[in-house]
């Protein structure tokens, strides 16, 4: 019992640190994008102030039970994803509830939040929400294909479904990282990652100025603050998952920050250079080159590594 309480306490600490890190990194990325556009950009405190402002709103309108539950499900998806990913390898505090087979659970949780949000946005009754949800789920279904293929490839390669064991197999120098032992799977996953982050050219589901802001169009006040906090948490969690699966994990907080930041910069570098795809272009993109690379990753594992 005491052991469980300690673990839950440690997890709460991890949750707080990862959310804060996600918010600060969000501001940092916004500032980088602003520099590319020749601006100064937002202060580092801006994401925190935005969340507090929304909590301090005096009024809120409800559209029904599912409208309440949408942000809650989204948050549950974010927290659930983080709960089963070891944030720092070998650390007792940041080890979380990692166990055998958690990789499947994490991939499920990543989908769960989106579906909850789809229900909540549907209840709000706004037509742009429905369009945003349809686009978001459409794009997600297509980028899950190369991502799932890449995950299957590394599962065959390391012969385990536990994220901790996958990280353990990559220890002992950069030459053991999946990036270098299986570059094909990493390429497929990083292409899927571009769609996951939702930056342009794959920001069709939020699509600012086009379908106002997609699914959260009707969410306001405290609902929105929950979604904003989850956006930071979920973004950081996905980076940690990618770092664990493909870039050797992290053994310290500094290593974690440098690696996740560099992974995020891939999406930003693509995002500032390319304008938004249309829905059909985005979905077709993922089903062509990244999917072929994903299949090639499995073939690569079978033909080259397993020999």
């Amino acid at each position, binding site marked *: 019992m005491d052991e469980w309480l300690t673990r839950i306490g440690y997890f709460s600490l991890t949750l707080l640190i990862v959310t804060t890190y996600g918010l600060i990194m969000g501001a940092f990325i916004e500032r980088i994008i602003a520099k590319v556009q020749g*601006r100064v950009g937002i*202060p580092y405190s801006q994401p925190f*102030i935005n969340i507090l402002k929304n909590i301090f*709103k005096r009024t809120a*309108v409800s559209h029904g039970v599912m409208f309440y539950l949408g942000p809650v499900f989204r948050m549950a998806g974010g927290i659930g994803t983080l709960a089963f990913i070891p944030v720092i390898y070998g650390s007792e505090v940041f080890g979380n509830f990692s166990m055998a087979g958690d990789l499947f659970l994490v991939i499920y949780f990543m989908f769960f939040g989106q579906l909850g949000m789809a229900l909540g946005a549907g209840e709000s009754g706004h037509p742009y929400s429905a369009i945003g949800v349809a686009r978001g789920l459409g794009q997600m279904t297509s980028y899950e294909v190369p991502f799932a293929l890449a995950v299957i490839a590394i599962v065959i390669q390391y012969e385990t479904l536990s994220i901790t064991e996958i990280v353990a197999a990559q220890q002992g120098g950069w030459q053991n990282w999946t990036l270098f032992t299986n570059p094909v799977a990493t390429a497929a996953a990083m292409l899927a990652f571009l769609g996951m982050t939702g930056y342009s050219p794959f920001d069709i589901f939020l699509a600012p100025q086009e379908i106002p*802001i997609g699914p959260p169009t009707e*969410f306001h006040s405290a609902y929105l603050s929950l979604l904003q906090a989850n956006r930071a948490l979920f973004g950081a969690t996905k980076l940690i998952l990618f770092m664990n699966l493909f870039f050797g994990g992290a053994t310290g907080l500094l290593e974690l920050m440098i690696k996740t930041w560099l992974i995020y910069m891939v999406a930003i570098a693509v995002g500032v250079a390319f304008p938004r795809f249309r829905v059909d272009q985005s979905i077709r993109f993922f089903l062509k080159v990244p999917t072929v690379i994903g299949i090639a990753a499995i073939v690569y594992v079978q033909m080259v590594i397993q020999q």
Partner: protein
Amino acid sequence: MIKSLSTEATLENAGLSPEERELFCNARPKAYEPYPIKAVEDFANWCRANSLWILAFGTGCGAIELRPLMTARFDANRFGVAGRPTPRQSSVFIIGGYSSVKTLKRIVRSYEQMQGPKFVIALGICPVNGGMYWDSYNTIKRLDQYIPVDLYITGCMPRPEVLVGGLVELKKMIKAGQCDGANRYVENFDWYKANQKRVIKNWNMPDYNW
């Protein structure tokens, strides 16, 4: 007793057909008190002032001055100002110049859908006294009679620098707790509604757009 209370507290929604009336909320808006502890209210006001989300609804020619705010030259993001495409999430409504009666209907609707505390900036001379449209048959003259205005920025047209200055002034007012337009609107609700209905002839929306 309960019945008389409830009829007193609801809106008539006379502009809607009986079928449509079922679809809309008919509750009257309520005024909100500040937080009882002054330090909490001051902190809340500081947060509100440093995160001004502008509703991206260009209501007149002055809306053209809003666009450069976000560009490299003026970069309003530095001040915590951001555009927001939906009234639900925005806190500042900038009325960009003249407002025709047709637009006023949409202004009222958007304003009521915004969540309080909400702030209104009237840009240009037209919302003050009609400006060059003072004798127009389809343009309102004083915006203050239809929705509460917190800050006026006059000129025809005011340049983006003045708009940035006005936003900074609005931040000072919010921090001092002087921007209470949402409560003023609720307290004088019947007066505002009578004024709105006098000019908007085809009133086919609920009396308060929740």
